């Protein structure tokens, strides 16, 4: 049960860590390709409900995923496909949840980004995203009671969720309990259509860290190397017992809130600013500059990602959808206490 404390290991010089960078880039790429596939399936009417993409946030997300290990816990936000894939989510889980396959973890009961395997460290978000942070605290709290050390929990949210009471309660709770929580805020400039000027009045959300008595760090969310360093270091510090860490990444959501949203309201000046740089493109440029990958290698990786995605979708499209006649329509784990449906009139 007891895991040994790991040695803090900084990734201060990313140019010495090509393997980590490539691993993160390939998670970003797979996420982008899969997200694009979800968008086209949605446009073709093959997906019920919404589709929420991580476009522009893949670098930050992948940096989290590659820094996590088995035994860690991750409560992602809705744009964290890259981080989920880089941590431990099988590609089939996302496809099955979007397409409603009964073989997926949510079995058609919940959809799209609302998926996870809580017993394997992947928390399944509810829509009130700030509420997930204290659940991560609870996992960490329980691990401590079980004398398990050397693991971390990461919760992510956008600028919008930082305005909720849940966010405040949970960060304060983590700070009071000195839990190994890494809170990553993707300040993507808009919560649905609401710009940050209507969301918070402090200079930067990282200033909140002072109020909780925890360290806070800012990072350029379009720069994979910076994300790997800042997020990776925060995770190393939390893992080493240095308590909660806040990371605020500055970036721009390069899509609508969901695919139903054309995001006409996004300020064109933001799009042409440094925040509007596509992190995937920037990572590709960096790979070539460092000579870690040439055009042929990049094309090969993309081709492999496309094949992975096509295979997963083809597999899931042959799987059964949920059947209301075999659905249990019961909600309790304690079956003997079930009641409720018998009060409905029988037809």
């Amino acid at each position, binding site marked *: 049960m007891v895991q040994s404390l790991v040695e803090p290991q900084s990734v201060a010089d990313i140019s010495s860590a090509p393997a980590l960078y490539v691993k993160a880039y390939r998670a970003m790429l797979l996420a982008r390709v899969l997200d694009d596939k979800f968008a086209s399936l949605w446009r073709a009417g093959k997906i019920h409900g919404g589709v929420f993409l991580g476009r522009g946030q893949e670098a930050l997300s992948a940096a989290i995923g590659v820094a996590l290990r088995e035994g860690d816990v991750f409560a992602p936000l809705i744009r964290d496909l890259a981080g989920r894939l880089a941590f431990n989510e099988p590609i089939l889980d996302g496809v099955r949840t979007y397409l409603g396959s009964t073989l997926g973890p949510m079995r058609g009961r919940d959809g799209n980004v609302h998926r996870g395997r809580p017993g394997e460290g992947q928390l399944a978000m509810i829509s009130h995203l700030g509420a997930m942070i204290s659940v991560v605290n609870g996992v960490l709290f*329980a691990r401590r009671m079980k004398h398990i050390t050397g693991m971390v929990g990461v919760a992510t949210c956008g600028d919008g969720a930082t305005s909720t009471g849940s966010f405040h309660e949970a960060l304060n*709770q983590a700070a009071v309990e000195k839990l190994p929580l890494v809170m990553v805020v993707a300040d993507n400039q808009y919560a649905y259509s609401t710009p940050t000027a209507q969301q918070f009045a402090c200079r930067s959300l990282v200033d909140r860290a002072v109020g909780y008595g925890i360290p806070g760090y800012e990072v350029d969310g379009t720069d994979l190397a910076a994300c790997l360093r800042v997020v990776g270091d925060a995770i190393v510090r939390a893992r080493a017992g240095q308590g909660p860490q806040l990371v605020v990444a500055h970036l721009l959501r390069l899509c609508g809130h969901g695919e139903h949203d054309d995001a006409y309201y996004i300020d064109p000046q933001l799009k042409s600013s440094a925040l509007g740089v596509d992190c995937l493109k920037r990572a590709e440029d960096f790979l070539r500059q460092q000579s870690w990958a040439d055009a042929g290698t990049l094309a090969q990786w993309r081709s492999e990602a496309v094949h992975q995605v096509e295979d997963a979708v083809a597999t899931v499209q042959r799987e059964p959808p949920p059947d209301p006649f075999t659905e249990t329509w019961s909600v309790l784990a*304690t079956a003997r206490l079930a009641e409720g449906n018998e009060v409905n009139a029988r037809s």
Partner: protein
Amino acid sequence: MSITYLEAIRAAQARALADDPRVFIYGQDVGAFGGAFKATKGLAKEFPGRVLDAPISEDAMAGLAIGAAIEGLRPIIEMQFADFSTVAFNQIVNQAATLFWRTNVPCPITVRLPCGATSGSGPFHSQTMEAIYAHYPGIVVLTPATVEDAYSMLLEAVVIDDPVIFCEHKLLYYHLKAEALPTEALPVGKARIAREGRDLTVVTYSAMVHESLAAAEVLHSDGWEIEVVDLRSVKPLDTDTVMGSVARTGRLLCVGEAWPWGGVTSEVIARVTCEGYDLLDAPPQRLNAKDTPVPYHPNLWAAHRPTARSIVDAARKVLQY
């Protein structure tokens, strides 16, 4: 030797902690201080590291409990007053109540709600919350009326693999006594016939069981025999025992301390009317608190909630129909 309702709650928690290393208690002032009502008195010392103070953050308290439950622990959360659980409402009804259904991972948390009106407590330290939690699928809602049930149902709550809202009535804390802790108990989900009778069924729960029993005694002196059904748990609701009683008496009055709109009394009447219409010799009636916040002053408070006297009046109307 006698034991109070409050002491039974403390004793049940002590036993749960002793029996199962996965159990811990988390709440405001529950540690060395022993809780606002002393329901955890001495437990922090007896069980080091397992009875833990929380910041004033009901949302985060509930969230932490859910996370710990995912990790296989069995937390007991004390809300200082039931009224404050509204701050944790989202975590309870959206996170805890949906977890098993969504993910197949059980969420065995027990949320203790010191509930119900006491004189002088006012609108925010007096509420009864059972109806609003029972409305949501995925939650078990318990409303013990006796010392024995306070003990045995709290022990069972900790064992149940689902979120349990444990509504303990503050008015019963100090005055309700039993000779000893029970050695056996009805399981959760079974109602209890608290008094047998042939003329009218009064269905009730929590502190209103005692007001109803007092009313039955008054009516007995007039020659009426009132059957009092103590629901014990409002969800699941033991419709069979209620229907069986109404089948014997033909008349039904439901009494609850909660507000009148919706809730447990209307649920019971809906079920009996829909499924047992032919059993009824008179229109079923219900008696609840008045539809205002709970008032502070004793004069107003005493008139806000059902009492033995108002239950007698309501019962006579059903009996004389």
